[in-house]
């Protein structure tokens, strides 16, 4: 397996009222070619900021502060955090592409989708308009839109949400990137379309061998797409492992809470309509609790243990990492 991106000790902070508020703390992960890594967490857990950091789209210092290293592997390794803007512009779109939550607003309303794909290609490759057009037709076919040649002349408002997301995917894939960052790409779509888009992404990944960083809050989607999963809470990784282990044997109480907060049609042992939620709110990043940042909301919190730093990320075996001081007790208790 080839590693295409290594994120080392990534910390991201924003300046707010004179002081720096850190919203991502010490994140580490690797993206492997052909594999999908899911970043899961609530709003405000730092998952989207992490992806913007990789893309180099955070506001420039002094408004933001980034530490650590983001290494893009290739013929030679590049640290994206030290790369000047001109070099970053060549990386964006070409080596790393991204798709968003809102396909409705991510396409320019005044250009045809054909023009937008063609320009995405021509901004990085020397190619005649005609060749780029042919490539655009290929791409539209690849993302499963029928009658591709006719679609080139369509404006975004003439397409459905699912179609638009397919076009976004076509644009993202136009330059055969090594990495695709998908920031909640299915959240705005209805369930059947969601499944189609996820199938499409998996098929395209199998064809191209790109690595995917999939950002979501939906465990159902995670189970479908991800090889490995990272659960984030308050800017920290709290659990990491292969998707099967994390979903099958979650160790961190937060992960369990998130999973039981997913509505199901029939939940064994629960009355219909009753949904388990996690009490309280995501803490203010300017004012984090000491020790485990989840302890004020945790049912298993033990005073004098959980509120005392440090809370390291511990290996529970088989590259299953968990940041919880009580994971062993809890694992035994639940059998």
């Amino acid at each position, binding site marked *: 397996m080839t590693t295409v991106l290594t994120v080392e000790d990534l910390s991201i902070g924003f300046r707010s009222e004179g002081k720096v508020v850190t919203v991502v703390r010490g994140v580490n992960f690797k993206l492997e070619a052909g594999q999908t890594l899911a970043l899961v967490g609530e709003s405000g857990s730092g998952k989207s900021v992490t992806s913007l950091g990789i*893309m180099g*789209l955070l506001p420039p210092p002094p408004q933001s502060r980034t530490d650590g290293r983001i290494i893009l592997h290739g013929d030679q390794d590049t640290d994206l955090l030290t790369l000047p803007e001109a070099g970053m*512009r*060549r*990386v*964006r*779109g*070409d080596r790393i*592409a*991204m798709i*968003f939550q*809102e396909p409705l*607003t*991510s*396409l*320019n*309303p*005044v*250009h045809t989708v054909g023009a937008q794909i063609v*320009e*995405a290609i021509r*901004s*990085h490759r020397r190619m005649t308009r005609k060749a780029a057009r042919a490539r655009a037709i290929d791409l539209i076919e690849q993302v499963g839109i*029928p*009658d591709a040649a*006719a679609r080139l*002349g*369509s*404006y975004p*408002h*003439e397409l459905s949400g699912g179609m638009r997301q397919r076009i*976004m995917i076509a*644009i*993202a894939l136009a330059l055969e990137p090594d990495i695709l960052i998908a920031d909640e790409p299915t959240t705005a779509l209805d369930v059947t379309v969601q499944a189609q888009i996820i199938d499409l992404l998996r098929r395209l990944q199998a064809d191209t061998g790109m690595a995917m960083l999939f950002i979501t809050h939906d465990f159902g989607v995670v189970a479908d797409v991800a090889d490995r999963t990272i659960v984030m809470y308050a800017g920290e990784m709290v659990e990491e492992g292969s998707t099967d282990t994390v979903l099958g044997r979650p160790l961190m109480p937060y992960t369990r809470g998130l999973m039981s907060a997913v509505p199901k049609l029939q939940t064994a042992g629960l009355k219909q309509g009753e949904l388990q939620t996690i009490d309280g709110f995501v803490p203010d990043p300017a004012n984090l609790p000491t020790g485990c940042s989840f302890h004020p909301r945790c049912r298993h919190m033990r005073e004098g243990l959980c509120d005392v730093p440090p809370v390291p990320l511990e290996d529970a075996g088989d590259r299953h990492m968990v940041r919880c001081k009580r994971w062993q007790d809890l694992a035994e208790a639940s059998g």
Partner: protein
Amino acid sequence: MMTTANDVSTKSNRKQGRWMSSRGVRRFVSHRLAITGLLMISAVALLCIVGPWLLPHGMLEINIIDRFKPPGTDDYVLGTDELGRDLAARLFMAGRVSLIVGVAAMILSTLIGTVIGLVAGYFGKVIGTVLMRFTDSVLCFPQIFLLLTLAAFLEPSALMITLIIAATSWMEIARIVSAEIRSLRERDFVTASRISGASHSWIMFRELLPNIVGPIIVAATLTVARAILTEAYVSFLGYGIQPPLPSWGNMLNNAQQYLDTAPWLALVPGVAITIAVTSFNFIGDGLRDALDARSDMP
């Protein structure tokens, strides 16, 4: 079977593709005042272009015997002035000058205003603040004094008056553009195009600018009306287009001393200015209704 189904859907989609623009066109066509304005200004422009060739007298042809002939005398359709020159010939030549100055000043001020507004709106922060405060400060000067001061120091000519008018009328467009861009730049498609590696100038001119063509066209049309009016009053005050080259403004200037004896000398260019300015204003209103993005939302 499949092909038929596809063809049908393609056709209906094609129709939809033209739907937005055709709806705009339809809205403009159904705007009576705008169409009236368009017809009037086309007629004026046509007369100014071909009129001088059709008339028997040139605009500089002096005929002392035929001084102050009222309109309709002999072959002087609109009468003659104090030197016996054909008023119609002068009016059409003056129309060429006034319309060209008005349109050229509009193009220049639209260019300046659009670029300043784009840069200010897109970058925001320090650059945006500095540019927009500069715009506001230019806006604070009463335009007429600025114009007269500049005109007094510079050699008056058609080119110079165009430049001066453009330099004092770009501010409104700059403000419109910067306000539109400030809201547009937060949209996801801007982030999306940054993510695909687009440069700032690409995003400004290729992604954002086409989105605000409507408001710019409307503002530009209204600017033509104002530029014609501005040229007229600067020339009327004697700082603009210099005789013997006629302009609607300096024709009025000449006419004022004969107001009681030969009122048509003032009326004729006055009516021409009124027609041109109101036409452009009507067209501007019609375009605003036709292109306004808010009324275009389904």
